[in-house]
């Protein structure tokens, strides 16, 4: 069962869903307002849709110096390798937790599926090294003639779904490829039938990996903000742990901690904590250590 505190999250989720809808309007055809703005500003004749601000290919291109020219010619490609990691350095992967239509779609739909039908990997698997490994593998694959980016592009799937809603079914041709497998993995297995609905993001999103890396760097350098647990206040109820869609909260020797590599600052956990122990705090100064005698209390 989901924790009782889910009821207190309604307002927070309302704002998150508004941000998710804003993400669709900003990035996806037929709207793609942000994409149109960038293409217009750079004088690009390309059609505005999810492919223009590609969230995957530029990450692969980081390992391909001969593609740097392409990226500089089309500034929209710089969003995923400069703008989003830059934001994540100071504020965390706000794009992932609030705006990303591909991650948000599966997360919000997963709440409709009864938890007894869902795989619960939270606390059992650490997805962070797998995601970094996948990102590096994706870069290496480009040197042996493979294109893992588009085979695993959940943004294209989301664009196809949204286009179909608005009467454009041309994306159906896309299904005659590996996309059938990746759609089933993204939407079904690691999506709505995984607790939290973010299995794909947690294991296989290179844009998320890049932002997780800079978010963690920001915390290490004490820059900006991140979700932190004040251990003296924590009662050890673990409601935040059971709620976290990215499995970023784990328990080690009766102490809860947030993994900045995995956290997408959705801030659901900060809403559910009635002792205000977990909050989005400045990284300056370290959070007080939890007193051993209070460990595991309540």
């Amino acid at each position: 069962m989901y924790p009782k505190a889910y009821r207190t999250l309604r307002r927070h989720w309302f704002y998150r869903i508004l941000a998710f809808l804003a993400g669709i309007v900003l990035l996806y055809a037929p709207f793609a307002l942000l994409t149109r703005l960038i293409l217009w500003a750079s004088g690009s004749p390309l059609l505005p849709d999810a492919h223009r601000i590609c969230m995957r290919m530029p990450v692969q291109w980081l390992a391909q110096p001969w593609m740097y020219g392409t990226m500089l010619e089309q500034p929209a490609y710089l969003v995923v390798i400069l703008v989003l990691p830059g934001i994540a350095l100071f504020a965390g992967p706000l794009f992932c937790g609030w705006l990303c239509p591909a991650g948000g779609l599966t997360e919000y739909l997963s709440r409709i599926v009864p938890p007894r039908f869902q795989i619960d990997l939270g606390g059992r698997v650490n997805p962070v090294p797998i995601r970094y490994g996948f990102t590096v593998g994706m870069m290496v694959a480009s040197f042996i003639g493979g294109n893992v980016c588009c085979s695993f592009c959940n943004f294209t799937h989301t664009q196809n779904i949204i286009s179909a809603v608005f009467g454009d079914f041309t994306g159906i041709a896309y299904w005659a490829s590996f996309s059938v497998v990746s759609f089933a993995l993204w939407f079904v297995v690691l999506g709505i039938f995984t607790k939290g609905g973010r299995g794909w993001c947690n294991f296989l999103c290179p844009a998320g990996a890049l932002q997780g890396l800079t978010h963690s760097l920001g915390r290490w350098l004490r820059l900006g903000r991140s979700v932190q647990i004040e251990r003296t206040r924590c009662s050890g109820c673990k409601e935040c742990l059971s709620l976290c869609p990215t499995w970023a909260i784990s328990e080690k020797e009766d102490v809860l901690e947030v993994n900045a590599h995995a956290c997408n600052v959705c801030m659901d956990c900060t809403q559910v904590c009635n002792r205000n122990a977990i909050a989005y705090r400045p990284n300056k100064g370290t959070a007080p250590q939890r007193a051993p005698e209070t460990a595991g209390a309540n």
Partner: protein
Amino acid sequence: MLEKLGQLAQKLGNRLHAFAFGTTVALGTVLFSQVGQTCAISGQ
């Protein structure tokens, strides 16, 4: 001291294993990605 080093080595080993698993998934996909899939923006 040795026990701590052992724990650290095990932790590192687990992470390396997971990292290698992710890399293998990506490289394994290359086999499938040859079936009718090219990049929509660069044709790669």
